[in-house]
């Protein structure tokens, strides 16, 4: 599936909207998510690029928790 298509579905999802209510979802694509100030949007970068990059799944998940200081 096209990642950007999935990203649009996620960003526009009614149940998830509240997590990025201050951001403009239209400006994001699967490659610029880390540029956001919103940690939830940044987290989407790790999720959507699950099968890409050199780091392991575990490290990627750890990366999300670091965003939230957890």
């Amino acid at each position, binding site marked *: *599936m096209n990642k950007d298509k999935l990203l649009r579905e996620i960003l526009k999802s009614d149940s*998830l909207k509240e*997590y990025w209510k201050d951001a403009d979802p239209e400006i994001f694509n699967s490659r610029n998510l880390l540029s956001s100030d919103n940690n939830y949007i940044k987290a989407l970068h790790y999720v959507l690029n699950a099968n890409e990059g050199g780091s392991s799944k575990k490290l990627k998940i750890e990366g999300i928790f670091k965003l*939230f200081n957890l």
Partner: protein
Amino acid sequence: MPITINKIELQNWFNYKGDYAKNTFEFKEGLNILVGDNNAGKTKLHNAFRFILKGEVLLEREKVGGYVEQKIDENNISKVLNKSLVNRDLKLNDMTTLGVKLTFTEKIDDYDSSTFLVTKEIKCRKDAQNMVIKEYVNTIHRIDPRTKAPRKTDDEFEKITAKIIPNNFLSFFFVEGEQLGLMTPLEGDKLKDTINSIVNIGTIDDIENFSSDFLREANQRQYSIEMSEVSLSQKVKDDLKKKENLRALLDDNTGYIYDCDEKIQNNELIRDNFKTAFESSKQNKALKSQLDSILGKINTAEAVINTTVNKYIAAYMNQTTFSICKLINEDGVRKNIDEYIENVKSFIFERRTELDSKKLNKHETEMIHLLEKSQPKPEILDKMISQDWCFVCDNKLSAHSRDFIGNKLLPFFRGTLEDDIELTKLDNIGQMFNSLNLSSQMYYGIDIEYFDDEEAGVIEKINHKLELESEKNEFINKHGTVQRDDEEDVSLVTYERALRELDKAAREKERFIGEEKRLNSEIAEIEKNEKRDTKNVSPKLTQINSVVSFAKLLNETIVNAKDNEYSEFADRLGEKATRRYQEFMVNNTVAKKNHIRVQIKKDKKNKYDFKIDVLNKFNEIQEQPGGADQSLRRVAVVFGLLDMAENKRGYPFIADAPISKLSPDTKTAFFKSLLNYQGLSQCMILNMDLWSAEKQGLNDIGDEVFKLIGTDIKSRFITIQHNVQNNCVDINYLK
């Protein structure tokens, strides 16, 4: 990048005798049709592609039969190497080379391409017994685009051959007609792998997996933060611990359900695979038991007839004896017989006496009568002579007495006196009366009605046997002699075991689903209380609670997206494959109304699988094994997938006899469809369906297809004929 096979060259490969130059097939980048009679060399050519692409050849298995892919070694090289070369041309210790060369071009873009020459050879020596392999040689050459000269490279052989058709595409793009069903999977991981390779649907699987793991990790972190949270009461912590334990149980339970699903899926597969064999075996077993029962009845009937009938026939054939015996057994007759016997005895005695009297004087005769009454023993008379003493009068024997005893008495009592005919006849009559007397006792108490009764019984038994024989013949005419083998028992056992396992797994699954409901409701109850009790908490707990909620909602959104993605994909593939299928079947009035349905199945771990069926216009699944619609279903799905692929994969489609089971109209439609099909870069179709053995040329369908491709510059039409005289193959380019 699109691949075009330019040519394939064979050396001493099966019936392709001679060097590469003699056995070269040059192809066009579109549709290449190769036509030939049985044993012309089509499948052997297909095997040459296999040798390059898979490093193996399809050979018949010894003893057990059937075909299996094998590497070429010293045990089977004699099957692959040209027989005439080995048996006639090669001398002991001569070396020879078996090999295949394939040249292909990989198009990089509109301006650039690379051409490779792939060579796979086996060098061997003729030994007294067989061929001894000396060396396996695999080489790669790149063809210089300017000079066209080959330049040897160090490229890895398998890496370059995988460019032609990658391994995971082989079962779709390189197909054997008769085994199309076995070699082109339409369900399971192999289908999914291929689908993913073509349309990249697997990306969402990875994303969904990641989001599930993220949610799981978030839940765990939430639990450890909660447990270290001072603001929470002991009761809340106890509840959280309980909830965590319940979640762990729920996870285990989900795993059990997944195991059950897997068992169900595996056993369904076994059940479906063995269903036909089981039913035929079961029917066969019932028929065999029916036939055995008839044969058993015939054996019993035969045994009964053997005893009863033989007894009857023996008695029946002796009815004269019976009549006489009956007469003898009548009152008075037996008495008479006894009298006759006594009379005959008396006649015999009289005759003997008469005979003896001729030699004995009166005194001697009287003496003999007296002696006979005292039943003298010849041994005593012998003793009297030897001792020369008369034991009767206790005196020395006179010369006269010795002569009388020795020459007259002894022969008389020993019966060695000369017999005459009359005496012999009297003896015979006496024996006859004795015999009559004895045999008459056999039928004592039996009357003529006995034979009438027996006759009716025997006829009834014989008729019964004849009926059974006719039942047997009728059975054999209808069902044959019904042979069974061990494999049938395997089918019965395997199928029945699969059914039992299925039933067991379904019951287990039901139990685990019940358990899942119970665990979920307990967790929900705790969570309901949590909302009341966990208000004033630390910022860290607030943060993790928020991340957990996010992870949960994100996962739900992705799972929904995945569901939609797969459903849409299945619908689209169904449409595309149906379009291809109906195109193939355009001339078949029934099958052209069929359609292909692609279904998705989802298991407990959100893993998807596909199931592909052909349905008729009433939406009934068409699953006649080995039918043409089934073979083309696979081709239609592959072509449908390629239609869906946004970028053409560009692998050559190489099929041996893919249309052997189709009607003539459908065969033509198949070629027409291939000709117009833009999804494939190149097609090699080897078949005998366009060939007439009688004409030794193209048949009507062949002519029609030949006309069809006549104007297409990207197509080629090649005939292959076995040249018996020269023991090689003639390759002719009709186009």
